[in-house]
């Protein structure tokens, strides 16, 4: 996992890595910060808003409770006084009301009016109402007395005769005359010396100030304070259609908000609490209701506020942080790219200059490049390298020029060596010779030679000097010259090699030696004498096959001055060939250190032609195919000698019976030259005509390019004829002989020609090679 990540990183540029790592760190840091702020700050802010809500409700409740108790105190004071007063004492009533109003005046209370109601103990509905008339400064002006027939019309909730002395609060109501929200507080009393309650004293409190104060109050901008009466009626509400017209239960039904009913029930039981209602349309998100009852009166305050109101700036703050993070990241990206581009540009510049150095261009130097301090170190190393390289190159240049001098001397040596080797192939009907030498070094230790000893004897030599280079080439020159010179004595080859050996041994302190094979061919007879001095056995081939000669090995030249060399003899027949070579051929190595070997040489020679130059090309190509450009470790030297014989003659005719006369004329002329007897000539011509007319008649399916080549030769006691044609493969020797014992008139007329040829020739060979029929016949030259 880690390694795959590392390799992934390594595949990217420095710029990319910097971007990724720094930006990841910054992003993580910022996200942590935002997360922490949310986690830490949100609960604090939430509890803060809840605390404030509670305090607000408590403060308003407290104030309202104060108002309630003030009002009740005034009423209770008035009642106490009235308890001592008789109903008929109007002045006393006025005084009580007046003092009550005076008390109100000194307090924060506002009232609309105060009254006393006297009724018979058994019926509340009918009685006398004494209402205060006061001016704007709350001063009592006069007293308004009014007979009331039905008290319930004013106070429907006060139907029964009160049984106990306690304070009653009316529901809030809207005074249409004054256009104010008011509430009436009253208490029953007994006029002096009465046993039953027969009076009521009341004060109507103006709530408009409180109403205004509540309506103007806003809690964190969107939060609202609501005042509810004992029955759940909204005393204040932002919507005027609700205030004093609807209870919380009715609104719950209208808005389909059951939690409002829960609040209403809680308040009716005098409990305080907090309820969250999600997705309230007026607020964005969750609304919180905090509610608490007001003591004595049974009313309550409810504060509705948006739960997340204070979190909103926090969210805003978070968004601003994210925006600044994005800006910060963009800035960082730009800065990192700028820095890394600067750094990599310098590196690329250095790289380009280093590449130039690698290509041998040292012109550019680092000193004039503006570089940052850390890259300067690398530049200095490169600059030192440049100086060292320049020094080294100068030194090498001197060494190389020295070498060049030595090489040119080697060139001269090679030139001398090459000029010592025979190059001009003799033009002779009796044979063809070709040579090829590929030295492994500039000067080699191998050599070959060919030369006429006299007009009828031709010598071929291939030799290999131990060692390589200049010493070997000098020794080689010596050996080459000795062999050629001593051969001119026309003595036997054992004599020649004996003397060459003797002189090569002289002063040979370095113990160099030469292996050599030499053959001298009598061009008239094909009789060949040869001598071998520890050299590879040559190949000898006739038309049918090749084989290695098995000569006497003898000792190498140059080691033992008393060594004896044995001359041997063999017969070369026309179209035989002798292939001489050095061990550079058979020991040519391929990449797996395998030798080319004698088997491959023997096999490739199956493809040999009668053209020695062509043969050497075939062998060389085969060696190259084998070695596959493996460096050559030893000189490769080859000499191919193809023998035709001194009396070799040749004629090519169109394969047409009309050419028979030409054939006979050619044969007669050649045989006359060799003074061959008439009878033999007759037999030769008979046989030749049969073979030729056979080829002309059956050999070719078309006349185009149909031709026959006839080689004639006289070698030893035979006159030989070879017929070569490119026609269809046909071996006449396999022909069935005709039955000559049959009666003459019953004989078939076919098969006579081949039969006659067999009768006339002394030797007959047929081969099919290189898509050619080759038929050779030999006729013995008889002495008669």
């Amino acid at each position: 996992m880690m390694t795959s990540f590392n390799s992934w990183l390594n595949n990217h540029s420095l710029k990319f890595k910097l971007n990724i790592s720094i930006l990841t760190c910054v992003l993580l840091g910022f996200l942590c910060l935002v997360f922490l702020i949310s986690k830490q700050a949100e609960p604090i802010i939430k509890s803060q808003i809840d605390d404030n809500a509670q305090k607000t409700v408590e403060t308003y409740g407290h104030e309202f409770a104060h108002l309630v108790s003030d009002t009740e105190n005034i009423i209770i004071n008035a009642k106490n006084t009235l308890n001592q007063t008789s109903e008929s004492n109007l002045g006393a009533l006025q005084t009580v009301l007046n003092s009550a109003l005076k008390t109100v005046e000194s307090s924060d209370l506002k009232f609309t009016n105060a009254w006393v109601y006297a009724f018979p103990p058994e019926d509340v509905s009918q009685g006398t109402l004494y209402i205060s008339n006061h001016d704007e400064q709350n001063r009592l002006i006069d007293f308004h007395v009014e007979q009331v027939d039905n008290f319930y019309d004013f106070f429907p909730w006060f139907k029964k005769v009160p049984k106990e002395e306690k304070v009653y609060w009316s529901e809030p109501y809207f005074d249409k005359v004054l256009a104010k929200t008011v509430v009436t507080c009253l208490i029953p009393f007994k006029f002096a010396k009465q046993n039953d309650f027969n009076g009521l004293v009341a004060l109507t409190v103006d709530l408009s100030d409180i109403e205004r104060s509540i309506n103007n109050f806003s809690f964190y901008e969107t939060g609202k304070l609501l005042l509810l009466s004992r029955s759940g009626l909204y005393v204040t509400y932002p919507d005027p259609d609700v205030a004093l017209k609807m209870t919380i239960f009715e609104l719950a039904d209208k808005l389909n908000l059951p939690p409002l009913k829960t609040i209403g029930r809680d308040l009716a039981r005098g409990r305080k609490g907090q309820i969250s209602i999600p997705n309230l349309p007026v607020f964005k998100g969750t609304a919180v209701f905090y509610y608490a009852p007001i003591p004595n009166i049974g009313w309550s305050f409810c504060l509705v506020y948006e739960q997340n109101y204070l979190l909103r700036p926090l969210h805003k703050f978070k968004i601003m942080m994210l925006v600044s993070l994005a800006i910060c990241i963009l800035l960082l990206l730009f800065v990192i790219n700028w820095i890394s581009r600067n750094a990599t540009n310098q590196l690329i510049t250095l790289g380009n200059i280093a590449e130039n150095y690698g290509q041998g261009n040292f012109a550019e130097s680092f000193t004039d490049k503006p570089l940052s301090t850390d890259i300067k170190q690398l530049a200095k190393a490169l600059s030192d390298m440049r100086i060292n390289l320049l020094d080294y190159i100068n030194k090498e240049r001197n060494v190389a020029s020295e070498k060049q001098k030595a090489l040119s001397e080697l060139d001269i040596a090679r030139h001398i060596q090459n000029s010592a080797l025979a190059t001009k192939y003799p033009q002779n009907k009796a044979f063809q010779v070709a040579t090829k030498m590929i030295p492994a070094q500039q000067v080699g230790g191998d050599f070959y030679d060919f030369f006429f000893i006299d007009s009828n004897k031709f010598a071929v030599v291939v030799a290999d000097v131990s060692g390589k280079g200049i010493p070997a080439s000098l020794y080689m020159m010596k050996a080459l010259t000795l062999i050629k010179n001593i051969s001119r004595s026309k003595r036997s080859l054992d004599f020649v090699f004996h003397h060459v050996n003797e002189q090569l041994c002289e002063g040979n302190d370095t113990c160099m030696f030469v292996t050599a094979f030499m053959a001298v061919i009598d061009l008239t007879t094909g009789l060949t004498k040869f001598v071998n001095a520890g050299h590879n056995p040559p190949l000898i081939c006739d038309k049918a096959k090749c084989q290695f000669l098995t000569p006497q090995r003898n000792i190498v030249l140059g080691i033992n001055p008393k060594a004896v060399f044995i001359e041997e003899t063999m017969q070369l027949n026309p179209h035989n060939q002798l292939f001489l070579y050095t061990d550079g051929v058979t020991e040519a190595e391929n990449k797996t250190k395998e030798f080319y070997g004698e088997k491959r040489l023997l096999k490739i020679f199956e493809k040999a032609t009668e053209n020695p130059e062509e043969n050497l090309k075939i062998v060389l190509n085969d060696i190259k195919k084998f070695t596959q450009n493996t460096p050559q470790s030893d000189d490769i030297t080859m000499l191919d000698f193809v023998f035709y014989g001194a009396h070799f003659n040749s004629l090519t005719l169109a394969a047409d019976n009309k050419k028979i006369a030409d054939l006979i004329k050619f044969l007669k002329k050649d045989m006359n030259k060799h003074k061959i007897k008439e009878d033999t000539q007759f037999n030769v011509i008979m046989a030749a005509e049969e073979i030729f007319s056979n080829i002309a008649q059956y050999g070719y399916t078309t006349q185009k390019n149909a031709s026959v080549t006839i080689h004639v030769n006289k070698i030893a006691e035979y006159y030989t004829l070879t017929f070569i044609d490119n026609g269809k493969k046909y071996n006449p020797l396999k022909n069935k002989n005709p039955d000559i014992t049959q009666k003459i008139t019953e004989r078939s007329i076919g098969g006579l020609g081949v039969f006659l040829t067999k009768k006339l020739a002394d030797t007959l060979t047929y081969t099919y090679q290189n898509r050619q029929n080759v038929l050779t016949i030999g006729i013995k030259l008889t002495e008669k």
Partner: protein
Amino acid sequence: MEEEAKTLKIEQTREGYKLTCKLTGWLDPNTSPELVSSLDLEGVSLLYFDMKNVEYVFSSGLRAFLMLQKALEPQGGIVKLINVSDNIRNIFEYAGFESMLDPKA
């Protein structure tokens, strides 16, 4: 070139049932068919060939003599060669055609 122009010359001498042909040159695949076609064998029962000036008789020549012999056989005729050289005689013997030759003198 003269040989190519004329490698066989035939001189016919008719004496009743006997036809004598004096041949000059040689009998090869080019000339042998001519020998067969140029002779009128009507009423011939003895066909003599004077071989004195014949240099070579190749197998095609042998076949020509064979064909003439076969042509004469229904009318009871025979082919005889006279003045045959030793070399040519050898050829006839090799081929088993001795019956056409005169017994050697």
